Each structure stands twice: as C-alpha cells, then as structure tokens.
C-alpha cells in the first residue's frame, strides 16, 4: 500500500507538468489544449452564429452541415482525420500531432459552442435588436453589443458546461500520441512490466486530478454566473 503511495508521489510531477527536459506535458498541456480550444472555438462559434442567420441560404446550409458532421462523429475520428490531412506533405501541410490536436479540438468545440450560440441568438427578443438599430446602431454593432451579448448571457450555463466537458474530452488526444495527462500516465505505466500492480493507483490518481480540476472549474463557473446575474445590464433587459 505504502509503496503505491510513494510511486504515485514519485510520478506526480510528471503527471502534472510532463517529463523533465521535454516539452511541457501532463495536466499543464491538457489545460493549455482546453483553454486554446475553448477560446479559439468561441471565435469559430461566433462565425457559425453569423452564418446561421445569414441572408444567404447556402451559408446557412453550409454552417448547419458543419455542425451536423462535427457533432455526429467521435472526437477520435476527427483527430485522426485532421492529422491525416494537416500532417500530410501530399496536401502541402506539415503540422505535427500537437498542432493537429489543437486544430481538431478548435473545430470540435467550435461546433458545439456554435450550436449553443444558435439557441441563444434565437432567444434574443426581436424588439431588442430593432430598437438598437432604430437608435442608429450599425448592423455590426447591433450584432456584437446587443444580440451576441444577450445570447452569451442567456446561454452562460450551457457554455460553462461545454467548457468543462471539453476539458475532459481532450483526453482523446492520446490517439495522436500527444503527451497530455492521460498519455503521460500510460507512458509511465507501460515503460515497465513491474509497474503492473500500480495501474489502479495511478489511474485513480489521474481520475482524481481530472475531477478536482473539473470541480474547481464548475465552482468557478457558478461563481461567475452568479456575479454576472447581479451586475449585468443585459440581465436587467432579459427580465423585462
């Protein structure tokens, strides 16, 4: 029992920060992937949100097709597909596994956040957008500071839920051999047959790390949602 504990303590730095002397990995990389994918994915989602309500039928169709495909396919397939295209000199790209992982996670979270944003945009009262344009705002200004803000505010719980979900989904990058938390554990354990009795302890630790971060994230999100609810002008509007 005690030797298991020592083993876990021994490899804990590797799990958290990656192997010394190599690129950062472990939990640090998992968090970096999740943050980049969420932030850039939100950019994709805004583009998709614009596309959903575009005047051109073909843009609407294309955007819906994109969301349908990305949300209908396992992340593992998407990762491999992106890596095959982006890492293949035949198509003129030379992007490594880490880059391919980032691209696929951005596409993936963009599609999910886009679907959330579409629901949010649909719930914006027409009168709100109309009054903004009557008061002389440009189309763009109305979208950014009225419709988008309102939609984000209404869908805040869904967005934070998706953020936490994406944090857990990043574990799939193991398929490309990216050294995140999950694959670090696998490499440590697989390096020696004598480690076999320690598998359960190590995976319990990995699970605990994931759930502690997920719990912290959801606490933070709840706190943020509450503060938004009390201070936001948009919420005052939403209540009318």
């Amino acid at each position, binding site marked *: 029992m005690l030797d298991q504990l020592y083993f876990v303590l021994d490899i804990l730095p590797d799990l958290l920060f990656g192997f010394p002397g190599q690129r950062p990995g472990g939990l640090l990389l998992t968090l970096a992937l999740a943050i980049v994918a969420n932030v850039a994915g939100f950019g994709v989602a805004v583009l998709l949100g614009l596309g959903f309500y575009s005047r051109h039928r073909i843009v609407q169709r294309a955007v819906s097709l994109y969301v349908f495909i990305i949300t209908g396919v396992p992340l593992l*397939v998407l990762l*491999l597909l992106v890596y095959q295209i982006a890492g293949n000199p035949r198509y003129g790209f030379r992007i490594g596994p880490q880059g391919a992982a980032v691209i696929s996670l951005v596409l993936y979270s963009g599609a999910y956040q886009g679907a959330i944003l579409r629901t949010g945009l649909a719930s914006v009262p027409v009168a709100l957008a109309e009054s903004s344009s009557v008061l002389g705002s440009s189309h763009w200004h109305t979208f950014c500071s009225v419709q988008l803000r309102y939609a984000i505010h209404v869908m805040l719980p869904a967005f934070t839920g998706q953020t936490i979900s994406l944090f857990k989904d990043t574990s799939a990058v193991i398929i490309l051999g990216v050294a995140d938390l999950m694959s670090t554990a696998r490499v440590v354990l697989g390096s020696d047959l004598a480690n076999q009795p320690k598998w*359960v302890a190590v995976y319990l630790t990995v699970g605990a790390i994931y759930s502690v971060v997920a719990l912290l994230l959801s606490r933070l999100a709840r706190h943020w949602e509450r503060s938004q609810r009390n201070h936001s002008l948009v919420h005052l509007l939403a209540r009318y």
Partner: protein
Amino acid sequence: MLKVSLPLWWTADAVALLAHGLLLTVLFTLVTTVTSLVVGLIIGSWRLSTNTVLRHIAGIFVEVHRNVPALVLVIFWAFAVPNLFPPDVRKTLFFANPVITRLTAATGLPLIYYVVATIVALTLNTSAYIAEIFRAGVGTIAQEHVDAARTLGASRSGVYWSLLLPQGVRASFPALSARLVHNMKNTSLAALVAVPELFRSTETAMSLSFQAMPFLLLTTGLYLATAVGLSWMLSLVERRLNHRSASTWTTAAATNNA
C-alpha cells in the same frame, strides 16, 4: 456492358472488417443505451429519495463518474482492474475461465473481458449524466401536481411510478437523447482497449492497405449514419411517449366530464 472498376482499397477483407466493426459499434450502442438508462434512472431516483444514505450514495456516484473522462473510466476498468491481481489469478479470473470461453465461442470476439469492461465503463459514465438529466426533468414537475396526487390518496410509490417517473422522463427526453447520441460516439473509446469496433477496424484497415483518407471518410459517414439512426429511433420513442400521455390525458378528461 457497363464495367465498374472499384478502387484498390475496396477489398473484400476491408469490407468484412468494417462491417464487423460497424455491427459491434451498433451492438455496443444498443446495450449501453439500455443499461445506462436503467442504471441512470435508478440512481436519479435515489438522488430524489427521502433516504439520506441512498441520496448520498447517488450523489457521490454522479460526481465521481461525471467529472472523470470516459476514456479514463474505460482504461481503468479494462486495463487497470485486472492488474490488481497477480498474473496467474488474473488469467483465470478475467481471460481463461469457462464463462469467458463460452462467451468467446458464442460471440466470436477475442478478449471478451475488454468488451465487458467497456460496457461497464460507458454505462457508469452515461448513467451519471442521465441521473442528473432525469433529476432536472423531475424538477420541472409542479409541486402542486404532486401535492394534488398525495391529497387524492396516492401512495408515495404511486406518485413515483405514475407521476414523477413518466413525467420526469418526458420532460428530460431531449437532453437524454442528446446524451445517448454522445454515448454512441463514446463507444469509439473501446478502440483504445483493443476491442475491434468500427474505429479500431478502420485503423486496422488503414494500416493493412496504407490508405488512410478513404477509410477515414467512410468511417465518418458510417458514424454519422449511426448517429442519425439513433436519433431517429429516439425521436420515435419520444413521439410515442408524448402521444401516450396526450391520449391518457384526453381519456381522463373525457371520463371526468362524463
């Protein structure tokens, strides 16, 4: 006569491989859908129970299995748990005993323990989500409704079986089906524990033929088709549920008016 020339990667072996994989993915989906619905509704009901112990057990179950990635659960149950035992015990317990041999003969799958472990892991993960969704669905039922039933003399279990359960499921059905489609996609995680489902067979076909793109695109299409099929089936169930409830409503109303 029209002669269709097939591309080189489209061989009988590859087709058989992918067909087996697809079959296994569909079976995985059906089995885990049913098991996680059953477990999820039980755990969700425990979370609403007046019994403090049950409520806490259910709460811990949900928190543990929802905050850990499905991949960690799959690898934990498939690879880590057998490693708790010394090699000879492990072999007889998980890989070479009469039950396993019979199951292998019946299904034709190698390493049946990994299949079972994946089903267990996916069930735990999805049922934790379903429990929460169901609880939220029950939360939308008006308290007056429950009070009315109790006042009219319905027992606690009567309220549960004919009010909370059906209405809770109905209210949470859209979220439930979204989660079940997600569960279908999660079956691809079985590929990482050597179960030859669709994703794993695609990888095998890719490495055998040195062709990646055609197989990946084909698999994308197959997963999309499975997702569409599953959501169609779930929408049929939903329509059935809503229809049944609507007709009971009208019958009840008619009886009341008569």
